[in-house]
């Protein structure tokens, strides 16, 4: 967690007192208009603008800490709620504390500054205050100060929760940022990584009505539409998520049933060779081509009813015991774990769009569940494979 290292306690000088006397609106005006660090110090060190529950008025950092702890307690927000809460705390501190210095090198005026610029966030406060006071002018300075404090609390609170969302997305590998150029502006949104390239722009154009980069809160409006539509359409499916490990990647027949005429042997052989780095050493030593031929041979032998473990092992010069662990035909009565090849076959079948449906309707799915519940020690146990 970050500390407000940039802020030091101001001395009780006449100048310090002058800042202490400024109204919140004027104080923030100094930060926005003059990049005034003393004004920023006054804001963080003395202004108890915030309340939480029935607690006494508190400083910005104390309020932020309450928000952080509250978020960390809500584990439903994210399984890693503590990490998300800490990250959101840091992001919000930056938003309201990071006052970039002036660019000294005039020869590179376009040099990008790192991090947030608190003047932008404080300026949003001034704009809100102006709007609010135009609609309902305060009757005196005391009321003005109280109203301004309420607006500031609302702003900080919103930005903290925006930071929570940012932290949640940032820690989620299934989402990535996309800068949508639309109507002469740019809106930064998060999209599933499965949507790639031009698909992103097309999807946004088809699904987001009347985007307006200049409208306040537009980014969050669009983001919520994205989330809602993606959930509704079940668009965020595992098969479409591209940023997965090899073993999770799309299998030939799992894409809308167009490619049924692919043999199980071919799919498993493909899967095995793709993951050859995860095979037992002696199997790995065969190389991709030979491994593929081995798998196809095994399936072929089984189909033609001439499968003999020992014979295949001999042909491929694999030790019998190793072969038995790889594709043995008897494992149940010997108390062994399921051989690697059959585990992989089961994994491949689990992605088949029809297999589960048929297994359920044939009663096999339930039968297996009953067996598992009856406590068959060899049924459904964790097995180590591909090591």
């Amino acid at each position, binding site marked *: 967690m970050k500390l407000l290292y940039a802020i030091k306690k101001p001395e009780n000088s006449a100048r310090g007192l002058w800042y*202490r*006397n400024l*109204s*919140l609106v004027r104080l923030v005006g100094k930060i926005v208009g003059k990049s005034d660090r003393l004004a920023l110090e006054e804001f963080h060190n003395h202004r108890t*603008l915030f*309340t939480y*529950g029935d607690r006494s*008025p508190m400083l910005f950092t104390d309020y932020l800490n309450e928000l952080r702890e509250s978020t960390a*307690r*809500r584990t*439903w927000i994210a399984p890693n709620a503590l990490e998300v809460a800490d990250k959101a705390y840091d992001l919000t501190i930056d938003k309201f504390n990071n006052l970039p210095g002036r660019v000294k090198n005039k020869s590179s005026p376009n040099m990008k500054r790192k991090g947030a610029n608190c003047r932008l966030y404080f300026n949003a406060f001034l704009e809100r205050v102006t709007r609010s006071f135009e609609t309902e002018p305060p009757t*005196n*300075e*005391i009321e003005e*100060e*109280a109203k301004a404090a*309420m607006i500031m*609390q*609302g702003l900080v*609170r*919103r930005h903290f*929760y925006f930071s*929570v*969302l940012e932290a*949640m*997305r940032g820690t989620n590998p299934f989402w990535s940022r996309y800068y949508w150029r639309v109507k002469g502006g740019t809106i930064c949104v998060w999209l599933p990584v499965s949507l790639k390239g031009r698909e992103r722009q097309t999807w946004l154009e088809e699904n987001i009505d009347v985007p307006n980069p200049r409208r306040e*809160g537009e980014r*969050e409006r669009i*983001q*919520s539409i994205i*989330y*809602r539509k993606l*959930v509704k359409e*079940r668009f*965020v499916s*595992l098969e479409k*998520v591209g940023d997965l490990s090899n073993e999770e990647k799309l299998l030939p027949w799992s894409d809308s049933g167009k490619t*049924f005429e692919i043999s*199980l*042997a071919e799919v498993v052989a493909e899967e095995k060779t793709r993951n050859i780095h995860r095979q037992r050493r002696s199997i790995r030593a065969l190389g991709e081509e030979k491994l593929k031929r081995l798998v196809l041979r095994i*399936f072929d*032998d*089984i*189909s033609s*009813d001439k499968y003999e473990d020992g014979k295949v092992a001999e042909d491929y010069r694999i030790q019998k015991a190793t072969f038995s662990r790889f594709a043995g035909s*008897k494992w*149940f009565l010997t108390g062994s774990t*399921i051989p690697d090849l059959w585990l992989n076959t*089961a994994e491949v079948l*689990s992605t088949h769009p*029809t297999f*589960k*449906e*048929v*297994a359920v*309707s044939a009663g096999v*799915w339930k039968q*297996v569940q009953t067996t598992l519940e009856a406590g068959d020690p060899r*049924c*459904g146990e964790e097995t180590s494979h591909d090591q």
Partner: protein
Amino acid sequence: MTNDLYFISMIADVLGQAEPKATLRAAIEQIQTLGQRPEYDQGLLQFQRFIAEVKRNWERRSQKVEDIVLDVVRCLALQVAADLLEGDENETQAILDLIGSQPRWQEEFEKMCGETSKSKTAQKIPEIIIGRNGERISSIPCERLPVTKEIRNVKPGLYSLKLNTGRLIWEEELTERELLWAVAFPREALDLAADTWDIAARATRKIVLLNGELIIRVFPEIESGHLELTIGDSNLG
């Protein structure tokens, strides 16, 4: 005969066909029928174990999809609970409908709303805090104006007034000259002044703050003085 793996060949054979649904069902039924025969004892048990593995993989994959969906729902729930979608009622309602579709989501959403609402409580009643030598000695809620408050037993020291938002309104040293009658008015006896009701008009200081919204009057007495603070009565200014 590869009886122990008979189910592999039967499944593999039908999956290669153009319309595997009906044939797959027939194949599974046949696997079970054959499994009743003694020579397929081990094969049937291995088939069941194999299906358990398929099931486990399927559940693991489904769980991952559910996790991703849940992530999205959490983001939406947080946006509504924290009022991040201000002004877009249609969008908010659509999200609430989605959350309401699952009792578990609804329950967690309500808890989240309870938690986030604590952060919403802003200072509604402005308050003026009176301090002496850095310590709070009194406060005046400014709920209904005008309001007047007297602070008694005011001894020399550094006095301050600040709003509960932290803004300092006034800070000044009050001395015996302002707080003790004998020092402030050495030639006038207090009892005489009291007889003529003059004492009320004998403030040693009148401090006008916030464009006349707040007036402090300092009165001297025998052993300590008193302060009179009037807030929100600009006619007095």
